[in-house]
């Protein structure tokens, strides 16, 4: 009867390790899939608060201004070349 307890020990530890090892690999696969297809970046804008959105808009405006200036400059250059 004593060996009964040894058998239970082997079965028990085996199950615990089988379960946890499987869990480790499944978790790794899950994390990889999530990081590849649903990366954290997609989540970031949703959680960004108002205060952090404001500077983003500002930089957008700067870019717009830069683009307009560049266009003006280009236009000006074309004028001077006499093409218009």
């Amino acid at each position, binding site marked *: *009867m*004593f060996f*009964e*307890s*040894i058998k*239970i*020990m082997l*079965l*028990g*530890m085996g*199950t*615990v*390790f*089988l*379960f*946890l*090892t*499987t*869990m*480790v690999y*499944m*978790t*790794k696969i*899950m*994390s990889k899939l*999530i*990081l590849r297809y*649903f*990366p*954290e970046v997609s*989540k970031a804008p949703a959680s960004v608060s108002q205060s952090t959105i404001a500077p983003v808009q500002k930089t957008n405006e700067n870019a717009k201004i830069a683009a307009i200036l560049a266009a003006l400059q280009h236009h000006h250059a074309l004028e001077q070349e006499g093409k218009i």
Partner: protein
Amino acid sequence: MKKILFSLLMMLTISLSSMATDTVIEPAEHVTSPAAPATTEPLRKSTYREETYQPLDFKDMMINFYHTTGINALLQPKEGVVTSQGKPMSAFHQSWGRVIMFGVTFLLFYLAIAKGFEPLLLLPIAFGGLLANVPIANIAGPHGLLGIIYNMGIANELFPLLIFMGVGAMTDFGPLLANPRTALLGGAAQFGIFGTLVGAYALSQFTPWFDFTLQQSAAISIIGGADGPTSIFIATSLAPELLGAIAVASYSYMALVPIIQPPIMRALTTPEERKIRMRTLRHVSRLEKLLFPLLVFSMIILLLPDAAPLVGAFALGNYFKESGVVDRLSDTMQNALINIVTIFLGLGVGSKLASDQFLVIDTLAILVLGLVAFSVGTAAGVIMAKIMNMFSDEKINPLIGSAGVSAVPMAARVSHKEGTKDDPTNMLLMHAMGPNVAGVIGSAIAAGVMIALFK
């Protein structure tokens, strides 16, 4: 300190005398009562009482009253007194047994209040034990306060599951998800459980003093998982007669984690190993945390449905928390619900501290075996970390291995503290939380295996 003891003593005397006055009507039965009219026709209750109550002279009244006091019950054990299970109770358990148990409950009060050992559970358990040992009142009987609580949620294994739900709602799987490998440490620590199962069974096979069945050995060994609710869950289903001792051992050792673990951890590691620094954990996304409890639960469904009640309750609590849309419910689980259930669970377990159930030689063996189980679990976790270091380039600090026994978050804190002794800037706490929560899952799996084998 003296003040506390004194107030406890006062409380005891007050409770004893009030219990005695409650039952003052009883002796009317064995006073001579010729031909009670109740046999002829059913009368209204109040009239009936009046008819059966016999006028007495004051001396007899005093003597009758004395027979209902706790003093008499403690000093003169009688034949035919039954335990809360309705079995006859020995003279020792009626008299000195109760007195010793009052002493034991005071010791538990002292540990809980003055030493701060898991007071949240030890105090309700100890007070439950005090109530359970009151003579005559039979509070732990099926119609007493403790008996009702016991049948309401412990006999049917409900309370440990509700506690598990709350624990789930408090758990953060982030550290485990960031470094899943450390889950294996939580698995190794379960060797404490199964090693002790063999030990306990060997003890009863090869020595004449103990006679544990395989089920009882299994219930005792679960103490090695260092998980109170799981211990109670398993003890109730496999060996309810040992519940009191197992629960007390389990919670006492959980409280003693900072004393039991460090010597074992130091003995098994070198200073260089203790100084190992682990890579900072990566950030874990919300989606990962949200899917993890479902992943674990689906694996349980496929591999070990017998662990589904425990892991299911745990996953439920965690899922509610991580979903982020039911903060009110998760908040209730983490606070109000777990607090209420803790009171009931403690009192219900305390009912098993009745002298007839606790003062048996088995209790001593359970306390010793529980300590062994706990130490073996700690050692196995540390050794597992060392083995993993042999096969991997990314080293693990073996001190976090001891956190594989599930006592959350105490075991993780001990790992961190031991680490800072050799390198004050080494932050091990978050690393140790990984094996710590894996230990909870691990001991739930171990429990599931036991249930699957013995049900």
